[in-house]
């Protein structure tokens, strides 16, 4: 598998505050990786740095050989990286169906995902297609947000904190859709606080703390203790 997305030495600041320190990360074609870590670890900042929302002060982001560092957000989408943002961020003035359609506004990608197929992935999207986006429950909104991102047939799908604020049974339902998403050829980066879910869905796991990656490996190879230490930054000795 070739490397699709390469992040090298990525550094980001919010004003004077440094949020990312020299982060290195690769995503191979067809792979799913998970980034775990506590609140404030820098996971969302990393996602925003990739999508051009947060300010990158050093380092590079490369997609299939093309440098895309510091490109404005619309251009990132056009290159084929779509984000399911933290907190879902559906458009209140748009219906569920319109929220899906807007995902394909700039880029349809000519791929597997069409409105019909996205609605088939999460049937609730068809049942409630005319409701205002924000009238749905949290879990349903998350499904809309994922569907919206899929509509552009992205090469890379970024999922920021899918499980936030959702009940376990709903989280399971959402992650149950992942095999189909993977089967369509999308490479995925999942940012999660739910470690169990992350480990189940990912080929590779990276743990972040205070803007740095503290641990990387395949789920099977990582012990609970190692993850605990990397997550919380305490020594288990």
């Amino acid at each position, binding site marked *: 598998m070739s490397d699709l997305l390469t992040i090298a030495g990525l550094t980001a600041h919010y004003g004077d505050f440094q949020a990312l320190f020299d982060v290195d990360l690769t995503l191979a074609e067809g792979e799913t990786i998970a980034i775990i870590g506590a609140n404030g670890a820098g996971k969302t900042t990393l996602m925003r740095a990739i*999508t051009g*929302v947060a300010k990158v002060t050093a380092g590079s982001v490369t997609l299939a050989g093309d440098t895309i560092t510091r490109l404005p957000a*619309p251009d990132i*989408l*056009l290159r084929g990286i779509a984000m399911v943002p933290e907190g879902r961020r559906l*458009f209140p*003035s*748009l219906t569920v169906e319109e929220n899906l359609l807007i995902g394909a*506004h700039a880029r349809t990608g000519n791929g597997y995902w069409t409105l019909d197929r996205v609605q088939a992935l999460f049937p609730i999207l068809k049942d409630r297609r005319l409701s205002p986006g924000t009238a749905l429950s949290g879990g349903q909104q998350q499904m809309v947000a994922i569907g919206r991102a899929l509509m*552009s047939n992205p090469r890379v799908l970024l999922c920021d904190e899918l499980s936030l604020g959702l009940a376990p049974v709903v989280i399971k339902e959402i992650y149950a859709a992942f095999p189909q998403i993977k089967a369509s050829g999308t490479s995925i980066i999942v940012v999660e606080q739910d470690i169990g879910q992350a480990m189940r869905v990912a080929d590779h796991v990276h743990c972040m703390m205070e803007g740095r990656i503290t641990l990387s490996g395949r789920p099977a190879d990582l012990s609970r203790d190692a993850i605990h230490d990397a997550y919380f930054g305490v020594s288990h000795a």
Partner: protein
Amino acid sequence: MMLIDTLAQGLLLGGLYALFAAGLSLVFGIMRLVNLAHGDLIILGAYLILTITTATGLHPFVAVLLAAPLMFGLGWLLQTHLLNRVLGADILPPLLVTFGLSVVIQNGLLSAFTADSQKLTAGAIEAQSVDLGVVTLGVMPLLTFASAVAVIFLLNQLFYRTALGRAFRATSDDQTTAQLMGIRPQNIFAIATGTALVVATIAALYLGTRANFDPSIGPARLLYAFEAVIIGGLGSLWGTLAGGIVIGMAQAVGASINPEWQILSGHIAFVIVLLIRPRGLFPRAND
């Protein structure tokens, strides 16, 4: 009956005010921009139509078809190079820039065309009227009102049934997330302002054929337009039509009592509506 006649005149006048206001409503709804030069841009449109008719001998109704794309381009340029640079959380810069623009346009027109009153001549149609039995209505006012309804209908179609309209609404909701969808807000805003100026040009056509105009009457039109938008409620185009009708009728009733009270009556209606319903008649649910 005198009252029905007055109310009918007021209704039709409301159509003209709704045309003044529709472009303003569109722009404010999408980007929260209050363009203090809007009235002067309408007058600019009138002078543009005048120039075209004088140069080509075309009828104003045809000239407006040439003027409209030019005004679209002007709106697009204005937004891209001037207004996009001052849009932001602070309301002062856009207000002051558009205020400056208003002064520049007024005096530019004054330099180019002098303070002489001008009028667009539509020919015999200006004097024609339609007898509906209970009231007689002028053809031009009827056309104006019909155009207002048509414009607002089309704008609503644009907003709610097209991909561009979706992009308008999404950008207005959440600029950052809209960008994540590949939408470029700067472009959206430019198209919106261009569209608003096209509507302003249509308004200019009816303003210019109805009465005399000169470079200084812009600000007053701005006030009526704003009153209509605010009465109607933010974000509702049909509300803007309702707002225009309220102002038009108030002015007509006031004028029928005493011609000097026309404008004052409109203002008072505005104040009364706002005291009762501070957010207007049909405000948007989420703001």
